[in-house]
């Protein structure tokens, strides 16, 4: 008991910040209601309340789940995606959003099940294949994940995120030439997408042992993303390889 009391005292002693954080949090929540994306969510909530049938309810729930996905709010995305599937189980979008929600909260088995349902309903839905690849990746099923990414790329030849992830898994499975090809394809598909530049640098440095190309791609990464949060770290990698900044 004494120890606990002491801990509380020390905690209070070191409280160097304002005490009104809860009030601040509430104030921010109130102010955020006026933000564009939250207004849009409110609009769809009204649509959901007034929807005349299950189909309309499913569509409105999907819209809310989609917007919560943009916000990154995994719990609310899951809640509305589940509602959408309950209202209308045969919409590929509902199944996809539910699968994506499960990925967000780490329920990868459930994600795989839902994404496979989505693909059954719409086999040419590239996003569902990509998200299924992500779930399989988290289950360490690398060959199957690569397969899904490749289907996504076939369906959408500009799907640079799928290319990056396929390349990553090729690198993890020792297929460096394939990895290099897909990282470069991702750059070709979207030249201002920074991730594959950095990944190519890592591939050249750690796997292909090509210092010059590693420096080149680390530098390109910083050029594409001037305010990269890992700028200091990437610069140190360049320096350690003997490169100039």
């Amino acid at each position, binding site marked *: 008991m004494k120890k606990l009391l002491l801990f509380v005292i020390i905690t209070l002693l070191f409280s160097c910040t304002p005490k009104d954080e809860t009030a601040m*949090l509430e104030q921010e929540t109130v102010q955020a209601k006026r*933000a564009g994306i939250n207004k849009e969510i409110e609009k769809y909530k009204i649509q959901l309340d007034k929807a005349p*049938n299950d189909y309309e309810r499913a569509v409105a729930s999907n819209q809310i789940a989609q917007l919560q996905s943009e916000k990154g709010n995994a719990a609310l995305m899951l809640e509305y995606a589940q509602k959408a599937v309950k209202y209308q189980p045969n919409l590929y979008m509902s199944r996809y959003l539910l699968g994506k929600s499960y990925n967000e909260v780490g329920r990868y088995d459930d994600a795989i099940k839902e994404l496979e349902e989505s693909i059954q309903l719409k086999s040419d839905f590239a996003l569902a294949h990509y998200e299924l690849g992500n779930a399989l990746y*988290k289950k360490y099923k690398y060959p199957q994940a690569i397969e899904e990414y490749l289907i996504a790329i076939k369906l959408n030849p500009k799907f640079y995120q799928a290319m990056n992830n396929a390349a990553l898994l090729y690198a993890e499975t020792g297929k460096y030439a394939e990895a290099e090809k897909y990282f470069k394809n991702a750059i070709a598909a979207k030249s201002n997408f920074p991730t594959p530049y950095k990944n190519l640098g890592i591939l050249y440095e750690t796997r292909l042992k090509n210092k010059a190309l590693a420096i080149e791609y680390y530098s390109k990464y910083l050029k594409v993303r001037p305010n990269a949060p890992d700028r200091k770290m990437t610069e140190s990698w360049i320096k350690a390889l003997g490169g100039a900044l």
Partner: protein
Amino acid sequence: MKKIIFVIILLIALCGVVVSQEDLIKLSIAPFDDSNLVLEKPGITATETLTQLLSHKKHLTVRTPDAIRNYTELLEKVQLGIEEPAVLKEKSSTLQIDYLIVGSIGKIRDKYELDARMVDVDTWKIVSACGIQTGSVNAGIDDIASAFTALHKNDIQQSLDAIKENAAVGIHEFREHYENPPDALYCAPFMEMLTSALASKTKNIVVESKFASHLIEEKAFEMTGIIENSKADAMFAIQGIAYRIIGDIRVFPDMMTVNYKIVNTGSQSVVFTGSVDVVNPSSLRAISIAIAKIIDDALNNRIGNLTITTTPVDADIYIDDSFAGSTKNKKLLVVLQKGNHTLTAKAEGFKAFTCQTNFVPNKTTAITIQLERITERYLQEAMVFESQGQYEKAVDRYGRFIQETGNTSEANVALYRTGHILLNNLKDYTKAKETFTTLLNNYPEAFIRAEGYFGLAQTYLAMGNKDLAKSTIDYLLQHYPESNAAQEAKAIIKTFEVK
């Protein structure tokens, strides 16, 4: 005699020196990270000022930054992924310090954000932390110096003892998402704030984030999408960190959202997620404290693990009527909040099993469920009664069957038959409507769903509500055009048109 007294006095003095040596806090200060303030670069001055302020205190022994420069340079290399973490272990014994103060200075809008944490050099556990929002760096350093000056070695030990049984937490990473580049980058300062807040406001052991995030396979490929590198959990678990915190900050034109997740590194499962909308970036400090308290509450009061195994495997598990997952992979791990929960297991061909469980946080509770195979006695009796025209008895037996199966997929046929009898034979339209609605609500994937809509439409028609009957049939035709029910419904639509 004089000699004896002299020896005694000398011994007492020596003991005093020994005791005071034990009470001394031996520390040094690593250069403050100011990499986000490229133009001002206040880090070196802040480090020197803090060293000076703390050097005058009797209970602190402060080694100058120069004295441990080799170590801090090595430390930076390790943090940047150039050196392996193991090299630090060998050096720490020669440092003549027990603690290192690490910190950062950032700026959001016109306010400086200062964070300083005293960490054990051997374990990288934070023993004290302070985070400050201030208008001037000097004023902030004064406050940090006051906070650390008030700390005594006994306090450190006792506060560590008070939380030694609690789980170790480390912040892994926060990623930034935005369509258009914002005025400032928020993830790095927010991680600093959250680390300080977790260490100073919660009951968990917090491993310094500079250690937790940077020393663990930093030079790893970056996955696109919402999920991070799949090896992260194992790397954290090796370091003895039970939970890692990950998240992102999404910047919109008129606000941003801070999202965070707690991941159990042992089970590799997300045990808690949260999200906060932020309009004013200057509020991030207060938000970080609020989030730290939520994380603390979640870890210590609200959540724990429940593992469920069933015979047969592949049962669907519902917690408080919400689908929680299936046991098809032999065991289902569920994260629950403390208190009473209703757990239901359902599998095709088996009776539903329901029980109450009082869930204790911070523990893994294991439940094994043996499901009992369904006997179809009530269903067979109901069908016999229905064929004999004994409709009330048939409804009763269908009801018993539904109750016994507990809404498993077997019950959908019984529900449909009940609705059919209520509608066509017993003419109890209100109950028929309730039954068809239950069928549709409980069985989103049942093959009999189209029949359910058709039954509901017929019920509306019998109740005289043509509009609802028509809209239900329209819905049926639109979404289940291939079903037998749709073909029958078309005939009803024609009668509408004739009238």
